[in-house]
């Protein structure tokens, strides 16, 4: 029963994706600037014939709705066009860069959860204690701090001053790793390559902290306030009246309910992480999607921007899906 509901919910995302694709298409086609000029660059020596040829090649000489048809048809076949600047299919570029971004985002999410869950719980249980005050002051700094600056300060301290962590890239040049999935940590585990595992983890640490810090701050604040509310509830009182241990009262009865609003916030933060990726990848010269998009924006490489927006939209829709499904498991009152 639940599986069917979930499948239904998955299917509803398809029209949404179509809508996104159409919006993205028109947005980009309606922006001023002729793509052909961009493709040919400022070497305006190209002949009229060459321009015509290019126009035809990219269907730019057809009416807009026909162009849309081509675009959607291609997209369905997994073809998102050709990068004007890099002379490579957009899909190839995206697939090449995606694992780096996924790896960093997962790292950031894990680090923020590892930091935020215990802090959110403990500072609610020990409200107004020293730990609570320090954590909340830290969380306050976390939401007030620009991510790029945190990254730079971390580089200055750990890479320049202490010289114990690498400042950029995903892996050292002298470490060899056979790529399987493109997630270096996973790949080194799969191939049993311990030096590469250590090296890629070290490279991952600072970017993940930088990206995760702000998210951790928000999660900790939300979890703390919902824990405080839940801990005052009648059912927590009942759990105590049953003779349950404090551990069970907090970790089972209270946390389970406090997680419901927290999961919503974590879901929203995934979007924030996607934006943050662009910044953090710039700071740490991380060869991921965010860096690719920023470059594409500078170069006005529209097919690439278009493709990246699609990827972001898919990620966003999928995240919402996961949050919704998680929600039904946490909150029995909600059915999909």
């Amino acid at each position: 029963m639940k599986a069917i509901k979930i499948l239904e919910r998955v299917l509803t995302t398809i029209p949404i994706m179509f809508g996104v694709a159409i919006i993205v298409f028109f947005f980009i086609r309606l922006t001023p600037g002729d793509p052909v000029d961009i493709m040919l660059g400022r070497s305006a020596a190209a002949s009229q014939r060459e321009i015509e040829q290019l126009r035809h090649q990219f269907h730019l000489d057809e009416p807009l709705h026909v162009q849309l048809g081509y675009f959607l048809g291609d997209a369905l076949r997994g073809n998102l066009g050709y990068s004007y600047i890099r002379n490579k299919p957009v899909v190839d570029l995206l697939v090449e860069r995606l694992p780096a971004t996924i790896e960093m985002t997962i790292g950031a999410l894990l680090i923020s959860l590892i930091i935020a869950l215990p802090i959110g719980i403990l500072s609610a249980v020990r409200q107004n204690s020293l730990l609570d005050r320090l954590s909340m002051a830290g969380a306050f700094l976390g939401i007030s701090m620009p991510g790029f600056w945190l990254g730079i300060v971390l580089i200055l301290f750990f890479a320049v001053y202490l010289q114990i962590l690498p400042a950029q890239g995903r892996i050292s040049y002298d470490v060899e790793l056979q790529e399987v999935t493109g997630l270096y940590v996973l790949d080194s585990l799969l191939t049993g390559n311990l030096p590469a595992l250590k090296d890629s983890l070290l490279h991952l640490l600072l970017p993940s902290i930088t990206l995760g810090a702000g998210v951790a701050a928000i999660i900790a604040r939300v979890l703390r306030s919902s824990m405080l509310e839940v801990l005052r509830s009648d059912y927590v009182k009942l759990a105590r009246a049953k003779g349950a241990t404090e551990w069970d009262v907090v970790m089972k009865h209270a946390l389970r309910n406090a997680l419901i609003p927290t999961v919503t916030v974590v879901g929203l933060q995934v979007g924030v992480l996607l934006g943050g990726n662009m910044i953090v990848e710039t700071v740490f010269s991380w060869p991921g999607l965010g860096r690719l998009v920023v470059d594409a924006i500078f170069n006005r490489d529209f097919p690439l921007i278009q493709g990246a927006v699609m990827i972001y939209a898919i990620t966003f829709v999928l995240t919402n899906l996961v949050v919704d499904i998680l929600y039904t498991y946490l909150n029995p009152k909600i059915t999909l």
Partner: protein
Amino acid sequence: MTNTPLLELKNLTTVFPTRRGLVRAVADVSLSLAQGELLGIVGESGCGKSVTMLSILRLISTPGRIAAGQALFQGRDLLKLSDGAMRQIRGKDIAMVFQDPLSTLNPAFPVGEQIRESLRIHHIAQNHFAREKERVIELMSEVGISSPTDRFHEYPHQFSGGMQQRALIAIALACEPKILLADEPTTSLDVTIQAQIMDLMRRINEARGTAIVLVTHNLDLAAEFCQRIAVMYAGRLVEIGTTDQVIETPQHPYTRGLLTCIPRISAQRTRIEPIPGNVPDLANVPPGCAFAERCSEMQPICQNDLIPFFEIAPGHLVRCLRHSSATPD
């Protein structure tokens, strides 16, 4: 009934610091409960009856605290037990039924699971799942939840209010406690459901000899159900006696006020007379009788010192100076 009471409160005092000052929510309450007894604690909301119950289980949340007194359960002072020993008593020897069943059941867990938890905490069925589940289903049908096998996996929001309260009672009964503290168990329910729940509690009392403390603002309900009644006002007990003594010959002006507040169908149409005035601010209870300001029979002396209990008949105690001829207890 044996001579040593099952539960005995001695000068129990529970306080809450607030911005306006220290609130003495329970002030100097002494009370005893015999094995298998049905005791009612009656008073208007905010008079400290619920806090008294929570104090017995030591469930007062910070910054509130039990400032003085003893709560002797089978001769042991609960207030001196370690946290671990106290947990052994909660739910096992003394269980509580709360006021609002919907907010008291945990919305995230199936009802059956929540009943089973009581068994598991106190190792009633040797933590054997099948045996626990069997016992839970027994309990559910005992408290009148129909088709318990199906409802085991249902969540609180799928239960009606009456069924939720039955589930709460099942949770409380799971470990066959010696005392059931029922805090306004029927207030949020329909009148017909109310009667069913009270009936259920009476049957439990008869079948198992469980002593029940019924906390209610409804003097009628207490009169119908209880053997003895204690009346509370502004954190203090003002009158204790058997139900007949308190209802037929109420001695404290507050008790009498409560009785005239109750509309009766049987008697001729009499006017319902509200008690004039308001409950004093608990952070600032005047010396002497707390009820003095609202009392029609107030004399200047009433506001001087704390009034002691006077025993006007065997077992009938009242805190009122009109009975100062009787011997102070």
